């Protein structure tokens, strides 16, 4: 049975990760676009933050699969329903894949991986050609994640301001957090 709304833990994780991932994308593009000392400072944040996002994403996925999500409004057009499902599958896939690719590409380069004073074992053996592929993938998939987040953001505001169907409030909290009831009243 689906819950009526997201739990406070689900909401908390969502907004924490929203901030972390958006910060991460800006750090990532910033650190490869400068030769100043910021390159090293941002890199030092990028790696532990990536590991934190990977762990949080796994926790979130487990909670989502066990607790479920509130249902979408029954009058949502099939195409939008498909878009909602597809974009959430892709969001979870990229939240987990990007840190793993980052870890794998450092391993393929033979780089020692030291995060917050911890030695992290390599995911695979050194392989330069594979590093080339993973490094390119890391950039393009990060840009894809940014595009997805912008779509997610636009869709959330579309629900909040245009459809006013309670989908936004299910995650944002506050008034109208029980979408099914509200729809039946209209």
């Amino acid at each position: 049975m689906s819950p009526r709304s997201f739990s406070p833990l689900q909401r908390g994780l969502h907004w924490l990760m929203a901030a972390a991932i958006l910060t991460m994308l800006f750090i990532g593009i910033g650190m490869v676009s400068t030769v100043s000392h910021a390159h090293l400072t941002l890199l030092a944040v990028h790696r532990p933050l990536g590991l934190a996002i990977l762990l949080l994403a796994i926790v979130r996925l487990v909670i989502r699969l066990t607790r479920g999500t509130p249902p979408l409004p029954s009058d949502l057009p099939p195409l939008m329903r498909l878009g909602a499902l597809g974009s959430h599958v892709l969001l979870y896939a990229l939240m987990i894949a990007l840190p793993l690719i980052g870890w794998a590409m450092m391993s393929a380069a033979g780089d020692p991986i030291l995060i917050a004073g911890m030695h992290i074992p390599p995911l695979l053996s050194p392989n330069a050609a594979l590093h080339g592929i993973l490094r390119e993938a890391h950039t393009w998939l990060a840009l894809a994640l940014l595009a997805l987040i912008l779509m997610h953001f636009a869709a959330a505001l579309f629900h909040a301001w245009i459809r006013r169907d309670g989908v936004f409030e299910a995650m944002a909290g506050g008034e109208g957090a029980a979408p099914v009831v509200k729809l039946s009243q209209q």
Partner: protein
Amino acid sequence: MAKPLLGIAVLVALVAAAFAYTAGLFSSTRLTPDRFLAQLQPAEGPSPGHRRNHLKGICFVGDFEASGAGTALSRAAVFKPGHYPVVGRFNLADTHLHASDAMAGVRGMSIQITAPDGEQWRSAMIDAPMFPVATPQAFHELLGLGRSKDPQALPHFAAAHPEFAAFGALSARLQHTASYAQDQYNSIDSFIFTDGTGEHHAVRWAVLPAVPPEPKTQEQLNQLGPDFLFADLRTRQAAAPLRFTVQVVVASPGDPTAEPSKAWPADRQHVDVGVITVQQIQDEANARCRDVNYDPTVLPDGMQVSDDPFLAARSAVYARSYELRTAEDADYPRTAPTSP
């Protein structure tokens, strides 16, 4: 409905624009790794699969035997008495794959020393005693002078950067040897060591040859042809393993760490921390050094970067070069291993 839609479009566009700004898309002046690589690119374009600078090189594997003297300066595991594997590379500081050994103004040696716990000390050094300019911005400008048609460009640059004139005067007096085994290679940039008590020491380091240097005139080098350095290394290594001493130079208070164009006085404390013994010289196409990015900021616990702005710049530019050349890996075929 039009107003909320417009609001959504504006908010999405704002985030996208902030991202593009962070990527430097709105700046024509920000120094990016790609702008550095554009300056390094020769007229005929890059050599796919190869480094974007210091292209012509040869690999070696060897052993670093730490004397233990380094432990007074740094708690790094590679300074504890013992043997640690080395993956190294000798190279010409030139952007052409087929640069002439006789003509290259600067030579380099890079090393990667690995501790038992997997920590690495990577260093890319050159045989010049200091760097020609004080900042990455000035270096970027200097690299562009080769393409300038203005005959006054170089004099103007030298006037604006007195350290460059000093470097020119010094390098005019320096004579090259005819062997990688006779050169001294310097870290140029400064680093901060942390010893076992937590105390910091500003340092530079050098790798000193065991073979006494025999300076040659430019005419003597020209007579050797464009490709004598690799053969010389192989001949010497076949006769007896090549050896180099790793020496750390400790700054005195006030010595400049942020300016690699400024040499430190010669009377500073010098500590011999160990000896590198070359075990095998290897063609780059098959060898380990090919796939190492000698990023000078890859350092073990007990060593860290100083306020020298070149370290971040080198790290950022080397990473981009490594990304490009590993993506082009198939363009530089790996041949069957050959015996040395």
